[in-house]
């Protein structure tokens, strides 16, 4: 592997680390569980590595390992995004039909 490729990779890593730190520090504790399942789904992107391994016919061992890896990371991608959405749907600012005047005035005050 050439030095340029290595250095480019390290640049990407360092910048992603800083950006990740900035973005993720802003996530409120309220959403820490969805954050964990979302980052987990996103890192299921290792699927792209598994796909090549499973489909490239390098040899039988690689194909079998690749197949298991594709299955495992698909579980994460599909399951991770679906469950994150299921959780996020539950977070509501206010109940849709509720005539609680006290609550709504409190909301306005805070806003």
């Amino acid at each position, binding site marked *: 592997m050439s030095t340029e490729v290595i250095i480019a990779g390290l640049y990407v890593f360092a910048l992603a680390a800083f950006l990740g730190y900035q973005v993720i520090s802003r996530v409120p504790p309220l959403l820490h569980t969805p954050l964990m399942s979302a980052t987990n789904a996103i890192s299921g992107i290792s699927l792209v590595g598994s796909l090549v391994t499973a489909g490239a016919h390098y040899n039988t061992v690689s194909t079998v390992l690749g197949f298991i890896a594709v299955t495992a990371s698909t579980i994460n991608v599909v399951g991770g995004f679906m469950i994150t959405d299921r959780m996020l749907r539950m977070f*509501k600012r206010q109940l849709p039909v509720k005539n609680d005047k006290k609550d709504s005035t409190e909301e306005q005050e805070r806003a």
Partner: protein
Amino acid sequence: MGLPIELTYLAASILFILGLKGLSHPETARRGMIFAEIGMFLAIVGTLLHREIVSYQWIIAGLIIGSLIGGAISIWVPMTAMPQRTALSHAFGALAASLVGVSEYYRHNAVELGTFKMTALSLEVLLGGITVTGSLMAFIKLQDWVRGTPITYRGQNIFNMSLLAITIGIFGYLIFDPSAHSLFYAMAGLAFVFGVLLVLPIGAADMPVVMSLMNSYAGLAAAATGFAISNNVLIIAGTLDGFSGFILSILMCRAMNRSITNVLFGAFGAEVAAAEGGSAGEMREVKGEDIAVQLAYAGQVIFVPGYGMATAQAQHSVRELANMLEARGVTVKYAIHPVAGRMPGHMNVLLAEANVPYSSLYDLEQINAEFPTTDVAVVIGANDVVNPDARDNPRSPIAGMPILEVDKARSVVVLKRGKGKGFAGIENPLFFKPNCGMLYGDAKASLIKLAGAVQNA
């Protein structure tokens, strides 16, 4: 790799970051996740065009089986079991990373790998292996298949450390001599063993830290995969995941005033029980009816949920009681400690499931000032996070841990299963305070009883 594929990867990377940025607020979170999903879709479609892929039957089989399993889990898993599901998904992610690593090593001539690629591959397999078995171990503990208390034996730390040293030694050797095949597989095997040994001595109450660490390792393993196969989107997504887990671990440790080393090697909750003497005084048991009257005529009530609320599946009953109180004009708030439950944010998700609006959920810093003006604080299956000893007694094992100061409320009710000590085996002086009453029994049953009594009050 062709330019079109690289462009889909670039788009995916940007969409992932936008997706995580959306999570900074509940209002924008779902939209953010749609961005991330589009990014993932683009990256997968782009990869399928890869010229090295010659047959699709294994890919399609894997995609279908994985989608079915992942979809089924995410539809049917109850919210209370979210920590277990997350632990499993860390294991799956790490498994995929380590298998790709093993396959890459297997198919390449060791010499052509080169030092850098070999380092990345070994790191990937090492972190991946630890995460696979460590997360499975955490899953088993969270699922209560083995007891949640730390499992310790003599010389445990020395044994674990030596094993880790050997594994890292092999790692170092492989960088200089990538052709040592048997050592590579030995390192993978040792990583699997170390994962189990690492989580074995960690108690269930420390699971939020373990979950965050495994989150971090799984991400870093994916990033290492990115280095090994020179794929930038993998480096970016893996790094984001790795740092997210890292930040969460730090937050969790800070919320317990402990270091990561102490959590990993301290076997908390095993040794401290003996060190503590009995606390003075009597615990005062109270009747549901009396509490109901207090609640019904209160100005402000704060609920403090803990893991006990999750085990009793009591979140909906909490909400019903709160509804009744709100209808009577009582202000109801919820105080969430960062390490309440078994994973970061666990309590928030459960209460959101029970339709509690997120504007009523408060963090530690936001709510502590409100306890002195609160009439009743209702503690539901929480213990250490409300233990005043953490604040008052410098010799307490949890000294310095930030707590929810419920003892400053005019009156405190603790819903507790029995008279026993908390998980960590630490005496809680809160229970002996004159303003504190104990309501024993299953949290859900107690809450339903309270709601009934409030209706009659």
